[in-house]
């Protein structure tokens, strides 16, 4: 029992420190988090509850029912700038965020 405690406690402490570190990393801007993840061994995904931690870290402040932050962004064909608020009173807008990678 004493040997178990002797090893279990340090292991637990290290685990919690690493877990907290990963969560703090998830709270960083995406490119910073990406750079950190690129240096971590793959085993890190399996060692920690990655998905629930990610969903919590990336919850975001915006809530359903709140005004959607407006934006004016260029279309890929360069033809025009799309302003989100220009659809107000017209029709709902689906926003699919992503990138090719």
């Amino acid at each position, binding site marked *: 029992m004493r040997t178990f405690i002797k090893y279990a406690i340090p292991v637990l402490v290290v685990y919690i420190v690493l877990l907290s570190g990963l969560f703090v990393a998830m709270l960083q801007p995406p490119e910073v988090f990406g750079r950190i993840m690129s240096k971590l061994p793959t085993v890190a995904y399996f060692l920690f509850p990655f998905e629930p931690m990610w969903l919590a870290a990336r919850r*975001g402040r915006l*809530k359903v029912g709140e*005004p959607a932050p407006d934006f004016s962004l260029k279309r*890929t064909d360069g033809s025009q700038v799309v302003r989100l608020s220009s659809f107000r*009173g017209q029709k709902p807008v689906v926003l699919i*965020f992503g*990138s*090719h*990678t």
Partner: protein
Amino acid sequence: MVYIEEAHPTDGWEMPSNFKEGVLIASAKTFLQRDEAAKSCVVKLGIHIPAVVDDMQDSTERAYTAWPDRLYIVDREGRVAFKSKAGPFGFDPKAMAARLESLVPSSTR
């Protein structure tokens, strides 16, 4: 579609799937580079919906906590009617479609 900063760029968190699918893109340093990546994505994936490109301050990504991918619906009053959980785990097109159906029944389209 709102094209935001790359999820798995060659100079960042590159994945085996990037090699498998031959999607090797460095993180954009200029708007022109991001715009080029977006254009190529639209062509290669055959995307027919309007695609816009986030600015280099990532203003829209930050405002919506959108990286690496996420779904939203904004209703006619300009309010958030649907917000998926953070992608990739929370990227749920079925849930989004169901919410859209309640806002705009397909029978009325």
